[in-house]
């Protein structure tokens, strides 16, 4: 018997989101984001808009669902309109 795959969630596009850095000291609102863009790509762009270093990789967390977003899937498939995102550095202390 073949596997049944759940249909992919529709992509919301365009998107308006709020993005802040991990310290909570910067908050920006962005309108007109292409919801088909991969999360990893959007994360880098948001880091740039927050004047964070562009030479590190970044991840996104949706604060409403309290979930880290999947880097390889479209942003618009994983969040709702007006989502509040935290831009999190993919780096560690050590």
């Amino acid at each position, binding site marked *: 018997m073949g596997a049944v795959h759940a249909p992919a969630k529709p992509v919301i596009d365009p998107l308006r989101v709020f993005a802040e850095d991990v*310290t909570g000291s910067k908050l920006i609102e962005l309108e007109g984001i292409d919801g088909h863009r991969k999360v990893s790509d959007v994360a880098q762009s948001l880091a*740039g808009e*927050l004047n964070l270093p562009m030479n590190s990789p970044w991840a996104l967390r949706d604060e409403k669902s309290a979930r880290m977003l999947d880097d390889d899937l479209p942003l618009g498939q994983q969040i709702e309109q007006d989502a509040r995102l935290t831009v999190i550095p993919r780096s560690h202390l050590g």
Partner: protein
Amino acid sequence: MKPVTLTNGETLTVDLYSKAEDAKLLGRETVTVGDLALARDETWREALRVGKLDEREPGDFALRVLPGKVTKSGRMEDYILELSDGNDVYQRRFTTYSLAPVARRRAAVLLEAETLPEDGAYHFGITSVPRSTRDQGNGEPKSAAKVISHTEPLVLEEAPLHKFLANSEPVPCETAEPLEEPQPPLPVFFAPGVWEAAFECARRGGENESGGVLTGRLLRDTASPEIFLTVDACIEAEFADEQKLSVTFSGESWAKIREVLRFRRKRMNRPNERIVGAVHGHNFLPSADKNGVRTCEVCTVAKYCSRTTAVASTDDFQWHASVFGGGQPWAVSLIWGFTARGQDDWRLYHLNDATLEARTARRLVR
């Protein structure tokens, strides 16, 4: 990324040289505007300390990069950053070492291309080259999205610095030579109990690294333009991935930290309390030699142990730049490690010469 154009019209570059006698040129890396972000933020901080510029974001000021003194070899010893707002101008000098991350970026490319010497060692220096026509149109790509800032302006509460100095004492460091600070850094005061709480947070991981953030307030002296920091609390990074040689704050860690901070702001009536630094533990001893010996030959007669793990690593610098690199140049990084003699050892780091440099601290006694 947009290359840095000096005021003489040339592009700022970092050259890598062989350590051999011929000092052969191994590679050249263009310095970008992004590479100077920490230096720009530091310049802004120092301007604020002497009453120049204001509390707008460092990126709001006009930035110019001036070439430094050129040595006989043709390289620059340093370069100068200038921030201005049409009225005030402030300049700060940065050394070659401030561009070490740029050199490392080129070194990584050379390593991949197998053109770095076998031992991976190199010297680097600052130079400038005529601007290429390719660079002239190389601005930042425009964002397709409309961006609106909702960032709260920076608030500097007023407080008498002389009272903080009178009510505090230097935090002693019994494991190292006292630090000379010819240019006193931005004063930092730990509130009673916070230094101890930070130590507990750093050591909580046992044999693994653990850490947290330091929260506090930025203050401006009532009698001078000097700004200073009080560290009011240490908030543990829960839900972190703690390993022997690293600690990674997860998305949940940051969410919890911000929740505790929001609570503190509301319940303790500290609306301006913010994350002002981090603490973590290097909970391991310095590595031993093949005979299992960790100490050096003069250990029995030396006053201070020369080997310690309380040292900011490249990873620590990268993390600090990622977390605080968006215009928070007052942030400090406290690292607890061990000396080769097994003593608890600490270093408090701050941003100087666009890198993490050890500095002193004070703690309030009442």
